[in-house]
């Protein structure tokens, strides 16, 4: 099958749009993993909470305020999860932590089902509506796609700046590289862990809001996002923020072009195939260091 340049571009744009969302989820995984050594299986739920809360708030207040409120509420939820389920555990085993975060994700999902409903919801398009499109080099692009790329791209850049240039960001990085040493320097590592949950919840919520006009959001949309975000995170090498972002983009493009050769029903299978491929063939990821990964406790 031949592909003309405008269709090629269309696939690219779709791939980047989804990819950047996977990247944000992957970065969320990475932030929490770095400070705690935990894979938070409830990561996808942050996007769902953000999206659903914004849809509800938007009935009462303006769109920007609704998004702001949704992000704040999701950050509180992130803090609550850490304080309630993680903070007070004394040296939990990896198996125990896995099951706890899976339990948290199920409970959040079921509460969302009863709080809202089983229907899919969406915020209105930020500019224009569902049919308005910009034409770029022959490809039709919804303005919302630009919102997604712009907001998420800015978020990732700001996060990098936060980690490099602010004292708080540096403390978090210190905590990630060596928790005991960070504690000896007087950093409150427990608070850093809470902060990492708040940060990754906030990022997830904002991503969940900007993408909801395109992908819609429902009570159980977190699971698929978590699996794809995890795939992106390990694809880029677990622990690396830049790797997570790159992994997300690669996965998004692979999925997008996968639809070209596979039936659309198997779109999700691409991500799982990539995940299993990385896990079985190169658990350290394509950018990760295989030697370092072998020493780490997964």
């Amino acid at each position, binding site marked *: 099958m031949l592909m003309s340049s405008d269709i090629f571009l269309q696939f690219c744009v779709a791939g980047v749009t989804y990819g950047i969302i996977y990247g944000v989820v992957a970065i969320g995984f990475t932030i929490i993993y770095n400070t705690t050594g935990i*894979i938070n299986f409830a990561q996808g739920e942050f996007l769902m909470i953000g999206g659903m809360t914004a849809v509800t708030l938007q009935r009462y207040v303006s769109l920007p305020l609704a998004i702001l409120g949704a992000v704040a509420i999701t950050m509180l939820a992130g803090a609550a999860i850490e304080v309630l*389920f993680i903070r007070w*555990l004394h040296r*939990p*085993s*990896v*198996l*125990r932590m*896995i*099951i*706890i975060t*899976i*339990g*948290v*994700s*199920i*409970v959040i*999902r*079921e*509460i969302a*089902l*009863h709080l809202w409903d089983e229907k899919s919801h969406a915020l209105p398009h930020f500019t224009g509506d569902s049919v308005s499109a910009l034409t770029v080099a022959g490809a039709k692009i919804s303005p919302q796609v630009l919102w997604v790329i712009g907001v998420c791209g800015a978020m990732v850049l700001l996060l990098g700046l936060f980690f490099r240039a602010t004292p708080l960001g540096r403390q978090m990085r210190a905590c990630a590289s060596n928790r005991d040493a960070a504690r000896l320097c007087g950093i409150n590592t427990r608070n850093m862990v809470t902060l990492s949950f708040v940060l990754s919840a906030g990022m997830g919520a904002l991503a969940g809001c900007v993408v909801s006009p395109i992908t819609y959001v429902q009570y159980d949309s977190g*699971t698929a996002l978590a*699996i794809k975000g*995890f795939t992106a995170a*390990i694809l880029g090498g677990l622990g690396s923020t830049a790797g997570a972002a790159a992994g997300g983009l690669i996965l998004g493009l692979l999925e997008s072009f996968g639809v070209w050769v596979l039936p659309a*029903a*198997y779109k*999700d*299978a691409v991500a*799982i*195939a990539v*995940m*299993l491929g990385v*896990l*079985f063939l190169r*658990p350290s990821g394509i950018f990760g260091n295989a030697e370092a990964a072998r020493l780490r*406790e*997964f």
Partner: protein
Amino acid sequence: MAGGGRGLGFTAGLAVAVVTIQVAASSAHKVFYLTQLTMSAYAMLIVLGLALLMGYAGQASMGQAGFFAIGGYTAAFLTTFDLAPHRGSVVVSLLGRMHLLLTRADGSGGSITHVHPWAAALFAIVLAAAIAWLVAGPVFRLRGHYLAMATLGFGIIVHRIFLGSSLFGAADGISDVPALALLPGFAITGRAASRVSNYYAAWGVVLLTLWMLSNLIDSRIGRALRAIHGSENAAAAVGIPIARFKTQVFVLAASLAAVAGVLLTHFNGGIGPSDASVMKSVRFVAIVAVGGMANLRGALAMGTVLTFLSLRGYFGTFDDLVFGGILLAMMLFAPEGIVGGQLWQRLKSANPLKVR
């Protein structure tokens, strides 16, 4: 750990309980309870296998529903797919010569020729075991988070395959699965007339499995598995072939799940894609966690109660929330389970009447 004698005592006690419940249900004219208890029994086969894998070998599997579905779907497909149009093919004529084909009347007045249910059952279980063995190689090179994610991914793929392919009935699943004849005049089937005999057959299988697994745990293999759970490096250092033991337990757990899939599919007369869903797998993990990770009897007792209540619809729309909440609460407060765990010891020692 309990010796073989106590294990036998528990098995005997359970057998008495099984008979008592049947007599009580029958005399109270509530025989329909036995249907859900039969279904719970088959689910317990999966739970027992997973308890061995998680509790004793320390390997989490979030994909047990996948093996259940492989067993169930294979049995269902082979006993409902009409081979009459394919009589000419080598495989079908070979099956016919080996007397492995069966012709029966279908629902709409015609007749279908299919693989003999026993051959289908055997093939289904062997297939699940073979897939488990193939998957075990790469999966057990992973640990912790990666192991959990890999088994989760396996479960999702199995779910998607059954959900997506029209050969397996897509979203409808496969129905009209025939009975599995056990003895002359007795078959695994959901017909109301054979409710009591099926109840005993199911619990017989469970008791037999429990007895075999208890013996396994008390044997050299069981001690090796606990050593692996404690520390893989230490176990390897004392000469335990960890990779081989992990693979064997994984294959055993998968086979038990497949046996459950085959029997439950014949009992229910069908199977659907929701039986393969990830949430089903997580439920089994929750049950094992409630029973106490390394506690077959606890898992069996708690699992039967929870599965029965769930099947009777006591949890309503909060079904998944109940299992998720239980999973969370158990892991937070009593990671060793209620029976025999720290919490239990604390409750016991808090008893003021207890003579020290």
